[in-house]
Every structure is written in C-alpha cells, then in structure tokens.
C-alpha cells in the first residue's frame, strides 16, 4: 500500500500547480483589476441612464438590460456626436462622460454603484435633424446653436456622422470627431470680430480711420490680398465688406501684445467644459510676430486655429451685452455668467454685426430673422476653404446664437450662411 500511496504525492503536485495558477490570477487581478472592471463599467456599476431632448424625445437609454438609442436613423446620426456611443468608439460625448462618473473601483469594494441618471438635455433633436440635413450628406462641417440669454445649447451637429447601431469599420475621416467641441479650424474672416473688439477697446481713433483698398495692399512689403477692391472704407464698412487689407492695418495698429491678450481673454486658446466634455483649445501665435505675420493673424490666418465652441461662447457674449452665460446641455445645470467683454464693446459689435447684414449680406438672405452675423472664408492651406457663418438673432423671443462651419470648399455667406438661415428659420418657427 505504501508504495502506491506514496505516489499520491503526484496529486499534491498537481494541486500546487493549480494553486499557483490561481495565484497568478490573483496577482493579475490586483494589477489589472481596475482596467478590467472599468471596461464594462456601465454594467459593473449597475447604473442606468436615460437621456431625453428638451421636448421629451428619447435619445439614449442604458441599463443592465441593454443599451438603446433613438428609434429613427436620422436622429441617431444627427445626435451621434453629442451622445457618443456605448462602445467607446467616440472619445467624447455624453454617454462616455456619464460612464466616466461611475468609474469608482478598488479591489476591496470592486466597482461601486453610482446613481442612476435620468436627464433631459437642452438639446432640440428636431433642430439637430434640420441642421444635419442642411449640411447634407456630401458636405462636412459643424453647427452649434445656443440660447445666449440662458446658455442652453439647442443644437450640436458634426458631419460626417454615422449610425451608432451599425458599426462602419472604415468610416470617412473625421466621422468619430465632434467638430463642434473637439476640433480646431482656421477661422479666417470670422476672426475679424476678435480684432474688432480689440480695436474698439485699444485704438482710440478707430472710428476716424479710413482705409483704402484696391483689391490688395502691402504690409511692410508683404502683399495682403482681398477678394475684391473695397476702395474707401471705414472701420464699420471694413468689417461688413470683410476687407483684409483694412483689418491687416487695424491688427498692426492694435499691436501683437493687445491681440494676444484679447484672444486669451476671450477664451479662444483655453479648453472649456460642457457638462463634463472638455473642448479643444485654439491657437494664436505666442512667439514674436513681424507686422506681416501679425496682419495675417489679425484676419484669422497665419497659425490661427479656433474651436467652433469657443466662437459660440464669443458670439453669445456679444449678443448678451458682454456677459456670457456659460453654455450647458443638461437641463438643470447651474448657470454661470462670465463678464467676457465690456458691455459697450459688446453693444458696438452687435450693431456692427447687424450692419453687416443690412448693409452687405442683405436681409433678404435671412427673411424674417433679425440676423446679426459675420461670414468667413478661411484658406486652409491645402487649397480648400472653410466657410463660416456665425452670429445671433437680435430678437428677445428667439435669443439664439450660432456657429456654422462648412469644410472643404464654398464661401462663407453662400454656403455656411444658407445653412445658418435654415437652422435659424427652423429654430424660430418652432
């Protein structure tokens, strides 16, 4: 018997191997447990969430029983970027931002149950759909609409978009980026609004200045081109005509220190936060610039880059008399107001933007809307243009500010302007 039973030691050997394997598991659990647990954090925390738009339309719902989106494909596509997806293919979006909140883990407690969410968004899904359709399937761009009196975001659309229910393994470039919040673009002429504000505040004789443009001009020997000759303009008509040469001179007069200060002050080079989503910071040359570079930077070229969201904040502040009500997208968010610029500067800019429409763009482009705006056509550098239109309605019943960006081709007024008209028309009609 002894001879046989001594060999039973082989069982202990196997047991030792098994326990060693279990030990390996425990060590790996201690090392990687947090990333394992957080990978399915929505499931692991047991949290659930429901997101409605401002009219009670269901946009997304998640719980242990599954993850759901809106029922129709157009809404899913139009709201894809602001909502994000459950699989984490988009880095930003409200769904990932919410699940961020339930990432509490320790080896002792595991993941802890956080609260269940039921949110109404300030977003208007119908407006999102209208904006998404206005951009169209074959164009790329972004549309942002915000109530400048309350800070409620009404519309956030980025294109190209995708249907989160049907995963496209080879999507067009930029599909998974929310261009409203997480990308920066060459601003072009819409940046003249910033240069204008700086000029109003720092150049005492700005209203007396006259500019002469023959279609192009020189700053320190470097040619600055305009689309058309604008002949004689003053500060106001230089903005409405978007005269590059005039604004080149204004920028040089303002000086680079002032330009840098105002760009920073107005929040163009900072990151902002929209209910847990961090936005992209823009760029303005911080190194010393010669006059030609400063001139180009003053008209939104050179190394200028802005995030559409920071431009929205800026026009909101102008529309609201210099006080920015920080935008938000979840109903019930405590509003914060920021004195972004002097009330008088804001009022002046508002008048000038209204003048842009009445004097230059033509009110018939925006029938029935008290439109104040500024267009822009930015040269990207690869031969294509970013066409911009930003502004707001000077209308107490419909206090909406907006930013429209159409990438790759087109002209500010013709392309972005007409999208802006469609979106604003939809917003007002409701």
């Amino acid at each position: 018997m002894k001879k046989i039973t001594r060999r039973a030691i082989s069982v202990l050997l196997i047991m030792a191997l098994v326990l060693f394997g279990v030990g390996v598991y425990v060590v790996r659990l201690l090392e990687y447990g947090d990333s394992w647990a957080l990978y399915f954090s929505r499931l692991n925390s047991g949290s659930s969430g429901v997101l409605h738009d401002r009219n009670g339309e269901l946009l997304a719902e998640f719980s242990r029983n599954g993850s759901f989106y809106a029922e129709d494909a157009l809404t899913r596509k139009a709201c894809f970027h602001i909502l994000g997806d459950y699989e984490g293919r988009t880095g930003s979006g409200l769904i990932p931002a919410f699940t961020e909140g339930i990432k509490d883990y320790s080896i002792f407690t595991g993941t802890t149950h956080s609260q269940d969410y039921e949110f109404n968004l300030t977003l208007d899904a119908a407006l999102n759909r209208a904006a998404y359709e206005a951009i169209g399937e074959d164009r790329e761009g972004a549309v942002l609409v915000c109530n400048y009196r309350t800070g409620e975001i009404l519309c956030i659309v980025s294109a190209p978009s995708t249907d989160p229910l049907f995963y496209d393994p080879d999507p067009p470039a930029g599909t998974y980026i929310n261009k409203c919040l997480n990308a920066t673009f060459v601003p072009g002429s819409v940046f003249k609004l910033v240069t204008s504000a700086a000029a109003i505040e720092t150049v005492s004789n700005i209203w007396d200045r006259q500019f002469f443009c023959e279609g192009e001009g020189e700053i320190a020997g470097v040619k600055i081109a305009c689309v058309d000759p604008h002949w004689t303009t003053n500060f106001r008509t230089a903005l409405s005509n978007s005269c590059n040469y005039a604004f080149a001179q204004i920028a040089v007069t303002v000086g680079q220190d002032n330009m840098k200060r105002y760009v920073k002050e107005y929040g163009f080079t900072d990151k902002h936060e929209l209910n847990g989503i961090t936005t992209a910071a823009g760029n303005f040359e911080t190194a010393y610039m010669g006059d030609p570079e400063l001139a180009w930077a003053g008209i939104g070229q050179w190394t200028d880059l802005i995030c559409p969201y920071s431009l929205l904040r800026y026009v909101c502040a102008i529309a609201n008399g210099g006080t920015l009500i920080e935008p938000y997208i979840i109903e019930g968010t405590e509003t914060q107001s920021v004195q972004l610029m002097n009330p008088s500067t804001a009022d002046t800019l508002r008048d000038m933007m209204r003048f842009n429409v009445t004097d230059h763009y033509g009110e018939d482009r925006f029938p029935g809307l008290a439109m104040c705006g500024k267009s822009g056509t930015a040269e990207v550098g690869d031969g294509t243009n970013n066409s911009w239109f930003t502004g707001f309605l000077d209308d107490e019943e419909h206090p909406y500010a907006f930013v429209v960006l159409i990438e790759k081709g087109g002209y500010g007024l013709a392309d972005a302007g007409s999208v802006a008209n469609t979106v604003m028309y939809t917003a007002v009609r409701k």
Partner: protein
Amino acid sequence: MDFFDYMLVLSKYALIIFSLIVIERALRSMLSEKYDDEIWAYVRSGKERVPVCHWENLIGRSPSADIRVYAPGISGVHAVLCRNDKGQWKIYDVFSRGGVWINQLQAGYGGAPVRDGDVINLAGTRLTFIELEGEKIGKLEKKRSVAGSRVFPAVTLVWLTLFQSTLLMQLLMSCEPDYSGRISLAFVSVIVLQWLCFTAMRMINKSGFELETLAFFMTSIGISVAASSTPEDMYKHSILVIASVFLFILFGWWLRNLKRASSMRVPFAMIAGVLLALNLFAGNSIFGAKNWLTIAGYSFQPSEFVKVFYIYVGASTLERLYMRQNLYAFVGFSALCVTALAFMGDFGSALVFFVCFLVISFMRSGSIATVVLSISSAVIAGLMAVSARPYVAQRFATWGHAWEDVFDKGYQQVRTMSAAAAGGLFGKGAGSGWLQSIVAANTDMVFGVVSEELGLLIALSAVLAIAAIAVFAVRSARHCRSAFYSIAACASVTIMLAQMALNILGSMDILPFTGVTFPFLSRGGSSLISCWMLLAYIKGSDNRREASFVVRNAENYTRPEDPRLKDEGVSRDPKPAEVKKA
C-alpha cells in the same frame, strides 16, 4: 443608505465570515485529527510482532513495503498479503525470486489462503501470521481516535446553515418576487438534506462529515449561481441536488463492499464505452462541443458520468496490480475515452481525463517514463487536433489575447475578468451580477459569476474547499484498506482539481478557454451528480475510526470459521527473522 443597503453590506461580511469558519473547521478537522492505522492482524518473527494495517499489504525488502523484511533472498517486492470482505486472508507471490510457501506449500501466483498461526515462508525467512478475531479488533479499534471528536461536525454544519441562510436572504432581496418561493425551496431543501444526512450518519455511528460539509458548502454556492441565472429552473435544480446526494449515498454504499466494487470493473468499462459511443453517434452539439445526449427529453453530458466509470476502471486492488504489471488494458481504455472526447470536440474534458490518466497510471506503475511518454504522445495528439479542428486552433490563438477581440473571440473571457474584478473582495450580492446573463456563464464562467456576486473571497474559499478535499484524499489514501480506494480517491480529486484549474484559468485567459465546469459550483445536472459520485470515492478512502459510511467498522467483521481448527499440528516455526514495521 436605507435599511436594505445596510442589510446587504452586513450580509456580505457575514457570508465571508461564515464561509471562512466552515472551511477552517473542516480543514482543521480533516488535517489535525489523529489518523491511527487500523490493525487487522500481526506477523510475528521471533519476539517481534508487526501489525498488518491494511487489507492489502506489500511484503518485501523495499523501503516502501508495508511489511519490511530484511533477510537474504527476499525480493524488494516479494509478496502481497490480502484480506477480503469476509475476513479471509490470502498471500500472493508477486514474481519474487525466492518464492512464497505457506506451511511448506508453495503459494502460486494465484495466491494461497493464510490462516491464523500459519507460517509464511519467504525464501527461507519464516513469519507467523496471527489473525485477530472480531473482539480483539474491536478492542484495538477503541484505541483509535474517533473522527469528529476534536471539531464537532454538528457545529460546522450550524455555521454552514447560517451561510446558506445569509445567501438565501441576499437572493430574496435581489430576485423577482415570482421566484422567491422556488429559490427558498431550493435552499430549504439543501439545508434539510444536509441535516438529514448528518442525522442518518450519526444514527449509524458515523461521525466524519467534513467532506459532505464542504460539498454542501459548494453546492449551496452553486444553488446561488443557479438562482441568479435561471431562477425559473429552481424546482429542477432542487431535485438535482437531492438526486446527487442520493446517488452519492447509493454509490458510497456500493463501494463499501470491496469485492463487489472491484468485480464490476469490466461491466462498468463497457457502460462507459457505450455512453461514449452513443454520444459520438447520437449526441447533439451545444456551444461547439458535441457532448450532449438527449434521452426522452432529458439532456445530459455522458462524459460527466464516464468520469465516474473511468476512475472505477482505473482503480485497482494491490494484488491485481502486481499480478498484472502491465497497464495496456487501462492505457487502451484511456486512449479510447480521450479520443472519443476529442472527436466530440470536448477538449476540456479530454484534458481532464488525460490528467486523471497520468495520476492513475503513475500511482499504478510508479514509472516517470510512462508519464513522460504519455505527455509527449498527448502533445503530439493535441497538435494534430489543433491542426485538424480550426476552432481549437482559434482558441489557442485567442489565448492571452482576449482583450484584443472583446466582441468576438475574447467575448467570454473579458466579460468574466471584468465582472470578476468588479465584484471586489466582497461581491455585489447574490443575484445582483450581470455576468450570469451571458450564455454559459453559470457553467464555464461560473468562477466569474461567483466572484462578481459573492466576491473574490468566497470564490477563493471554493478553491480552498477543493484543495482541502485534495489534501484530505492524499492523507487518507495512506490509510486505506485497499489500493482500490486510494487510487480512486486520488483520481477523483485529480479530476476536481483539473476541472477547477481549467474553469478558472480558462475563463481568466491564463489558459485556453475550454469550457469545463467547476466542481459543485457549475449549474448542470450531469456535472453536479458526477461530482457527488466522485466524492463517494473520496469518502471510501476515509479510514478514520467510525468516520465514513463507505467504510464498514472494523469491529463489525468477525473472523470466519477456520475449517482446519479441528485439525491438529499447525506447525509454528520459531526461527527468527529480522522484521520491521515499515
């Protein structure tokens, strides 16, 4: 936090405390209690008297002989002295050089009966055989320590009942009201069952209850998993638990009689073969492996039952082992089983059988060469299987890379890992996990479900329970009456260990995912029943005094009538030889 939350948190800690107490008490009882050998007879050489402690004793010069005899002419392995259920002794010459004589008559390879006072002549060395009568054996028995005298099994069972009640409370807090009745019934029936078992054992004076306690402990965790994942099936599950315990007792009773047990080897081998053949030709496929058989509406996995038969065929009494030194028949049978399983695509079970084969063949032959040869031929066969079956190759390709394909190939592993990690040490509460809703979570990924819902500590205590059973089986194996019980017990725990390892490490991406059940925990009738039947083998090895119902009390055996008692002149040779108790 409301009242319910406090209760849940409190119950989580209570659950861990109860489970640790149960495991600790069972372990302490199994490992610290004295394990005295039984004494069945003596062999006297001159003044020296050596006890015969088993029913199968190896006599020889070898240091691992049970009765060690140093004398010229004695082979390392010389003879095997055996006793049967009726108390009749026989001695077998196991191919010794010097031969064996009983009272001058040569004992052949077929064995010769030995009776009280007979002189056993081993190549000239004479030993006197002294048989003990029932009364004397009983007296000697009284000196042995009784199982369960240090750590009272009833108290352990009370702690286990507390554990089960807490588990039930957690489930009732989380389950749908419709199912609370069925879940309660399952727990109440297991609690009643374990106390009934215990009472019945006490009534027949059996006090070793650690194995059953640990098995009931794990079965309860299994009930919790079932209640969480398939609450609608709880009636069926309760019946399965009752059936398992019933079959455990039935099979244990069958094993009580060594002759009856060991004579059924060939029929059992045939049943196993038929089951596998039926499975191969009439089986259906669920989740990739064609290892299910449906008879009259009931689906079961034949391979689970074949495990029980396989051990039965593999285990062997000592004399048989030495009389037939080759392993060919067993190797052939093993190869048949493993090949059949591989053909079904059940590579997990094939691997479990293979590990079991290694242990049995090593215990039988003691040959490292056999083990090395087996492993290398298995590796070659495995490679062939991998190349022949693309889905096996794919599992190997996924192994260690589960996180790279979260939605397809690593689907089960990453979810198991994530949910297990999310449970932390104390779990989310029974019935409050999500992993259970995934296909096969309550069988192949059960370790993850337990980790998520009951916490890592409870999951590890299930590992500890299996390890405790394994250590106990190895410890008991030394004191068995027959090698049949020793080998069967060791083979049983090997199967449990191998399944546990494949289940945990496979679902955690440390080994390839093969889809093997965790003993006692995984949901599924075939698995549960086979585990309880395997437990009967281990129960058969528990030779402490009055411990196991599978082992008959020594004092109950009376010495059979010696037909020669009327005869005169049984010669006793006084010639001394050096005899030592090994």
